[in-house]
């Protein structure tokens, strides 16, 4: 008999998406009566500013709203708190500490971009150990499978994923980026027009 009480499981998220998994404790016994209280996760004001700055660099304000306009910074923090466990809390905090050490907030915008490019390319290597794989389930769901790791997902993966999720599913972000069709009413194979935006549903 396998004791999976301490097995850390990855679950994939959002049907049809390439979302990384918060790791979950698979509980073996209902009597465990584990309290559903994610580890405390708190950021300093300075760290919150860095989160906001990085999110805004990923999705800047252009002729459409930017990450800050639609509340992405608070969303990212809330999501790390609610949907991720300690390993991600640690890796996220480590990523922020690294940027704090680099005096990120006081740099010019081109220096900030350079640093984030570096962080991004480092995380490509870090992500390799997770051996991310898309899997199809019943009903044509796409889910993501990752090899279990003791280490939390890299900071860059977390902040980029949550920034995009927070932005493109916010009302302003979604409606200004896509052609929002909540009730298509029909199903048609069509041809793309020049510069046509994606449909969102």
């Amino acid at each position: 008999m396998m004791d999976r009480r301490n097995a850390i499981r990855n679950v994939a998220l959002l049907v049809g998406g390439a979302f990384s998994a918060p790791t979950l404790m698979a509980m073996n016994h209902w009597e465990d009566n584990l309290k559903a209280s994610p580890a405390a996760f708190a950021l300093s004001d300075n760290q919150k500013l860095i989160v906001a700055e990085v999110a805004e660099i990923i999705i800047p304000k252009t002729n459409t709203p930017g990450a800050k306009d639609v509340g992405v910074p608070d969303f990212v923090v809330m999501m790390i708190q609610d949907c991720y466990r300690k390993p991600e809390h640690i890796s996220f905090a480590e990523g922020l500490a690294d940027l704090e050490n680099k005096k990120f907030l006081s740099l010019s915008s081109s220096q900030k971009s350079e640093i984030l490019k570096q962080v991004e390319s480092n995380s490509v290597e870090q992500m390799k150990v997770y051996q991310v794989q898309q899997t199809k389930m019943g009903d044509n769901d796409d889910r993501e499978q990752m090899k279990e790791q003791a280490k939390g997902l890299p900071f860059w993966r977390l902040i980029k994923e949550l920034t995009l999720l927070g932005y493109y599913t916010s009302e302003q972000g979604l409606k200004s980026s896509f052609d929002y069709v909540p009730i298509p009413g029909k199903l048609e194979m069509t041809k793309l027009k020049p510069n046509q935006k994606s449909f969102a549903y």
Partner: protein
Amino acid sequence: MNLNLKVDKTHRYDAIVVGSGMTGGMAAKELTEKGLQVLMIERGREVKHIEDYDTAMKGPWEFQHRGKISIHSAEEYWANSRFGNLANEETGEFFTDDKKNPYIEKRPFDWIRAYHTGGKSMHWGRQSYRFNKNDFEANAKEGIAIDWPIRYEDLEPWYTHVEKFVGISGQKENLEVLPDGHFLPAMPMSAPELYFKEQMMKKLNRPITIGRVANLTKPQPWHTELGRASCQYRSKCSRGCPYGAYYSSLSGSIPAARKTNKLTVLHDTIASEIIFDEKTQKATGVRVVNQKTLAVEEYFAKIIFLNAGSMNSAALLLNSKSNRFPTGFGNDSDQVGRNIMDHHLGVGANATVEGFEDDYIFGQRPNALYIPKFRNWGTDKRDYLRGFGYQGGASRSDWKRGITTDGFGATFKEDMTKPGSWVMGFGGFGEVLPNPENRMYLDKDKKDPYGIPMIVFDAAFGENEIAMRKDMMNAAVEMLEVAGFKNVAGFNRQDTHLGLGIHDMGTARMGKDPKTSVLNKFNQVHAAKNVFVTDGAAMVSSSCVNPSITYMAMTARAANHAVEELKKQNL
């Protein structure tokens, strides 16, 4: 909504149906339409069609975690969360809180439940395929388990009967391996899918069809009469379909049964035992526990239909002990709870598709392609038994591609507003062989919060399934490569267990011989013929096709037989 809540003071009905899901709904519809007064017993809360679809019309921004599952929910829904967040913010209300409804695992078992009106019909995948002739003959031919007591011809008229009522969109293909049914107009395929279909026929002589799915593409008068409308192509089916385009007990069978004014529904009422009368050697009714008050009551009827879902129907039999049935109702054969089957999944392949840049889709298709079984079929012979089908298809990637590709900033942001390249992938559904050692039973000591013994699962995939999986992955890779697609990657997840397919079945199988089976060819308990089990429990083998339409056809056939027998005073 016409809710028939007047419970007869004498607690007497013509028929009791335990469960309100896919087969319970169908049993209630068929029995009431044939003139019986029916009591439907649902263990979970009441969900009202449309009115209680709280998330159905919400925009993405109206979900706090935007579809991701929170740690808190993941602990409440621990079985649901092992493999994917089945119970997420959009659909969680139609899944069961595992923490409040515990079960015991001797070996890992992913038991996915839905305790409310409509049961799992609220989030079924809607894929509806008939078993083929060989599915009913394979056990006998191969010497596996026992022979089915029925053949395809026995179910054929009932398949047509339920397909018409349910409304299945699909394409006639004239294939022996996948018999045609009664279809509404088929949904279209995208340009890469049409290309793929053509390549497979040309290069592998392998037919591919569009999924046969229980969404109304063109409602018929009998659908409209029940308030069901055409599919809106939102593909948000599992939130509850406010258009009634998606077939569930709530949109179809229960409204049809209510129209007769012969249906009474009890909610929050858990059937704990079947009451057996030693004098007449018949069941007389069921004992129930109210899940809110824990009050125990008894209800009586001439016939009883068990449609609680295969595991709970078997548990109810096992928990109903008497002098005649010391090891559980109808368990003379010791087969109740044994032979658990499901379909195994989480294996297949994905690829990227070059070209088709100017092809796009308006609307979301709540459906996929279907690749019927081709292994161990015709002249093909493998070193394992049975086979598998695939579901999947092509789609254009959206902004989520930005998560796994490099880049950020204004240009990146602009790119994300345009459709990305096409990707294509398939996941297999493999047949699982019946094995008496794959079983569930009741724990001797542990009780659930309602005082009913807890279920213990002791089941796992066997060698045949594991051998098949390798081939399932390789064959999917081969097809995508043959089609000329790029970055072909196979997958074969090792962390799946029986149960995950949510096609659990086999725990009270039909058969010709009372020594080796629980039910006869009309789903009647051999030794107490006024008890019918017509959910997945009755299955003798699993085929590789999605089973709900077969359960429903069996249910309609059994209900017809029950009423005929009542008329002849045989029950």
